[in-house]
């Protein structure tokens, strides 16, 4: 039996395909909505921009990127607060269900009484989370391109840079999934895992918001996974093109460490 169990992977897909697909589609829908309202929004740009400086920072704008510009508006699927929360939540869906949810329900005993190894179970959930991360990243990417196409602003979109952003978003999602998996491995049941994950997802989200709004507190962003997805600082002519790649490496390295932690913790648990 391989490290990732394909039968369990298929079971996870079957079980979570609807909720995961809904989450993955949400940033895409967001991008399309931005595409629909952008032509109106850009007409009021000059009037609104001075009033919404704080709002711009809240939504991820920076000195490099005006969110009322085409480039800025179509980074929304990658950095709108709803999208950020969904990046975090999508990987937590399978993690809270397995192992914690099945441990509380009793289904984990049935699974682990088979030849399935504990580390294989964790690796399979982790592998599934990476698929979900890729799906939601693709959702955001598709949303940005579709929205830009609908608004007739296609030419302003650096497709290659957005592709890197997609990978960055996928890595962020995988990282949050890995956090949820560590929580799940230590939790006795689904509600405990969900509660702890919720606290981390929203607690760190508030820290990230603080890092965006408080100029001197930008460093706070480095304390949270959210801080390693900064579209406004990494796209466009003023952006740091290498930033997204650095963030991807940091997020994936952290994810890998968390996945190893989760697998070791599950293997050494006294009670399955």
């Amino acid at each position, binding site marked *: *039996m391989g490290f990732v169990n394909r039968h*369990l992977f298929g079971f996870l897909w079957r079980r979570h395909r609807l909720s995961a697909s809904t989450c993955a589609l949400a940033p895409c829908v967001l991008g399309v909505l931005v595409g629909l309202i952008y032509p109106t929004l850009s007409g009021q740009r000059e009037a609104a921009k001075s009033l919404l400086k704080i709002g711009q920072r809240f939504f991820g704008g920076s000195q490099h990127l005006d969110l009322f510009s085409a480039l800025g508006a179509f980074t929304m699927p990658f950095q709108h607060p709803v999208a950020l929360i969904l990046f975090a939540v999508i990987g937590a869906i399978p993690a809270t269900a397995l192992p914690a949810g099945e441990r509380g329900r*009793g289904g984990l005993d*049935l699974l682990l*009484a*088979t*030849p399935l190894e504990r580390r294989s179970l964790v690796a399979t959930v982790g592998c599934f989370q990476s698929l979900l991360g890729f799906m939601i990243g693709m959702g955001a990417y598709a949303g940005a391109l579709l929205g830009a196409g609908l608004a007739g602003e296609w030419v302003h979109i650096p497709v290659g840079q957005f592709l890197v952003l997609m990978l960055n978003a996928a890595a962020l999602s995988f990282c949050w999934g890995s956090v949820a998996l560590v929580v799940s491995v230590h939790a006795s049941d689904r509600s405990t895992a969900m509660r702890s994950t919720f606290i981390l997802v929203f607690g760190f989200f508030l820290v990230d918001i603080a890092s965006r709004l408080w100029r001197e507190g930008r460093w706070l962003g480095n304390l949270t996974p959210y801080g390693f997805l900064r579209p406004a600082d990494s796209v466009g002519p003023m952006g740091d093109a290498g930033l997204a790649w650095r963030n991807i490496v940091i997020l994936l390295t952290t994810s890998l460490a968390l996945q190893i932690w989760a697998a070791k913790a599950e293997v050494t648990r*006294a009670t399955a």
Partner: protein
Amino acid sequence: MISETSTCAPAIHVHELEVTYGAVQAVRGIDFSVQPGEVFGFLGPNGAGKTSTIRVLLDLQRPTAGIASIHGVEVRTGGGGLRRELGFLPGDLDLFPSLTGRETLDFFGRLYGLPTPKRSAVLDALGFPESAMDRKVAEYSTGMRQMVGIALAFQHAPRLLILDEPTTGLDPLVRESFLGLVRETAATGATVFMSSHVLSEVQDVADRVGLIHEGRMVGVDTIENLRRGFPRRAILRYEDGRTESILDSGSPADLLDRIPREGLVDIEIRPADLKDVFRSMVEGEDGGGLRE
């Protein structure tokens, strides 16, 4: 992963096994062995430590102390290769409600990575309707779920079956069919380790029983040997409606001497059953929570 197991070693060997949950000592240094091809009844009231012991055998629970081995391989190190030889039915069976019966059996069959030659025979023997196989488990009655659970344990023809309270939720007819299935399986050379607090079904099928109470083994022997120490129970009925019961292992003459005769209208003498044995060994006369 160890997949090669010894054919001459005991099917199950447990030595000085202890399981502790925080301050609660669920299993307190138990020892027993189950031989290949044997049907072993693991008896005890609720909370006696049966499920904790079973969870150790499946490596679902790490023991605080002691050793558990299956076919000569320590459970802790045997891994998936060892578990491939086992069939398991948990006491609190929780199948995945979103799967159908067929999908459940297919999924677990694939996890075992083995063919499932006994699936149809088991479902037929239990009288599980074929038409229900494509309904979601969530729509099943408790008994139907239990039948799927039994099929799940038996379907890949394992060398060792570990069944925790297997007759829970089964009606009397299906229970009889299940016990027949246990006998047939044992006749093929497989070992059956079956926990229960229902004495009658165990004494019908088990070659030997182990009695566990408050985490301690209070007896391991064949049913006949256990009964031999407690050969008869005398039930006495008196004129005033009183009924008294005497458990006796002495000579018939001694028994007659012990019986108060005043007002006695009837005596019924019958061989001691397993419940009598258990009562004597662990709880005086209250049965220790066991059901007949």
